[in-house]
């Protein structure tokens, strides 16, 4: 029914607008989603806070100022200080960098892996069976325990190889990614299977488009919306997973601030200096929340059925 609705009113109207990127349409739709817009604003603010913040607030997060330890909010330390007198604001900024970076990289990695496997399994019948078995296998692995084991097993060798920070970073990112790609792979595979039978793919085949270009031109753009949604969920869950690892004492080392780590370290101080858990707690929650809302909005915005309305 709605198909007839957007029909151009009359053909004699000269539509000489320059070609418009379809992402603008997505954006137009996205803008109408209040929650998503709010989420977007919050998320961008958080990104600014963690990535641009350190230029504005040029305090070394590792600088120990023992005389001003355990302080509350003040002009010198807007979020207070920790038990060594390190500035919490600076630590939140640097910690956020790591947390957000972990979230983004783990998500990207998981996404690439999931999409690749999903597309291969969905498009090529030959791979479908084996790849889906592998996916099932990974789904059947208990994730948190697996993650814990991975971290205990490989942290030290990796730290040795890449240096402390990078080693743990790589480990955590990889561990989160390889335990979280399966959902994406399944969704993508399902969509690819459906898309493969869609007439426009058949049309492309009737034209003689080879498989590779069918995938890149016709299939991938059309699985973008589930992928984008997986992406936002992926960031959120990666950030939570990282902080959960920190909570279990298996995340980043104590001298390496991340939100999860700051929260973990601040737990004991919750009564005297609630700010020490409230700030990281609020930032983690806000990030996850905003990303979730963005995901919600994106899902709507990328769905042509909704966008067409």
């Amino acid at each position: 029914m709605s198909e007839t609705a957007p029909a151009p009113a009359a053909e004699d109207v000269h539509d000489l607008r320059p070609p418009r990127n379809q992402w603008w349409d997505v954006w137009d739709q996205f803008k109408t989603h209040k929650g998503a817009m709010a989420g977007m604003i919050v998320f961008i603010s958080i990104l600014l806070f963690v990535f641009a913040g350190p230029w504005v607030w040029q305090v070394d997060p590792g600088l120990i100022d023992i005389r001003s330890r355990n302080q509350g909010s003040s002009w010198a330390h807007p979020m207070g200080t920790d038990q060594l007198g390190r500035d919490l604001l600076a630590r939140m900024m640097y910690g956020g960098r790591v947390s957000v970076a972990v979230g983004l990289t783990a998500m990207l990695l998981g996404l690439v892996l999931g999409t690749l496997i999903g597309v291969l399994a969905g498009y090529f019948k030959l791979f479908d069976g084996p790849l889906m078995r592998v996916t099932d296998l990974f789904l059947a692995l208990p994730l948190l325990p697996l993650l814990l084991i991975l971290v205990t097993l490989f942290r030290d060798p990796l730290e040795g190889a890449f240096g402390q920070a990078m080693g743990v970073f790589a480990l955590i990112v990889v561990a989160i990614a390889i335990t979280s790609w399966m959902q994406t792979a399944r969704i993508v595979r399902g969509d690819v299977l459906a898309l493969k039978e869609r007439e426009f793919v058949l049309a492309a085949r009737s034209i003689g488009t080879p498989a590779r270009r069918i995938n890149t031109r016709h299939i991938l753009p059309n699985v973008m919306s589930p992928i984008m949604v997986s992406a936002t969920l992926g960031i959120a869950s990666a950030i939570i997973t990282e902080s959960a690892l920190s909570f279990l004492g298996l995340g980043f080392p104590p001298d390496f601030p991340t939100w999860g780590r700051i929260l973990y370290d601040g737990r004991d101080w919750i009564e005297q200096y609630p700010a020490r858990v409230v700030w990281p707690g609020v930032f983690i929650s806000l990030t996850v929340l905003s990303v979730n809302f963005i995901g919600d909005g994106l899902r709507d915005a990328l769905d042509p059925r909704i966008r067409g309305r």
Partner: protein
Amino acid sequence: MSVPRKKLLEVRDLKMHFPITGGLLRRQVGAVKAVDGVSFDIYEGETLGIVGESGCGKSTCGRAVLRLYDITSGSIKIDGTEIGTMGQSALRRMRPKMQMVFQDPQACLNPRMTVAGIIAEPLEEHGKLSGKKRLERVYELMDAVGLNRNFANRYPHAFSGGQRQRIGIARALALNPRFIVCDEPIAALDVSIQAQVVNLLEKLQDEFGLTYMFISHDLSMVKHIADRVAVMYLGRIVELAERDELYERPLHPYTEALMSAVPEPDPAIEAKVERIILRGDVPSPSNPPKGCNFSTRCPKVMDICRKLDPEYREARPGHFVACHLHDAGIMNNEPSAGTTGATPRNEHKQQGEDA
């Protein structure tokens, strides 16, 4: 008919079976016999209509002819070249000759490509045209199918059904094909738009000398557009003849029933027509009945129909049919039927009454 014409497409005993897997080890346990041995020719410049009920294998047949599927068996010759067994890369080179227009104008266009992109895709894949020339060609094609050039940068969702179908036709025309399979190109369109598309197809056929295989379940429209018509039932062609011949003198009971079921937009005629109402539903193509496929619903069913598969034969010049009623033996030597082993008609009637 009297003038010998060149055959563009020769299909012989084409079969397309889709496997059904099942059981503990996911073995193949059966097959959907979507197309189960069809043979027909299409002559240069003509339109062959294919009609039949939903699920009888029309689309599968059309797609198999274009080798969008790897066929189960049979031979397909286009312009004398056998493509039934050709590999996909060799096929790619054949693609410009043969194209397809799809049923659902919404589904056959990638919602994320512009009109220009969609029409240009075949040119990119096969063409040696440069970017500018290519755009020029796209505009020509848009003109040819009656689309405003200004729409080149729009996305499919901004078009109406009829316009979208035009985009699909333009894409099919891009490589100057000689043969186009039209798979129910008007089924999803409004009555008032259908005529536009059909007229366009006819116009293009005249202009470019195209050959069509026109699949439809709308017998009236097929009557309008086709030169010859094939009627399919459950994966088989049950009757094939010149259009007028078929519509005036259908031989197969299914064809008769099909045509009688079509309502006529004229109350005067409607009041008069005698309907043959078939009983029951179309059997499943994965489990077709024994003997003649139509035997389960046929109002003129005979004993032999339930046992023997009727042969597809030329009952009259240019008029092929697969029905025991038109077996030479029955038609000509009724008295000696007993000796030939064929079942006499009256016996069938008795049994029919018993049943």
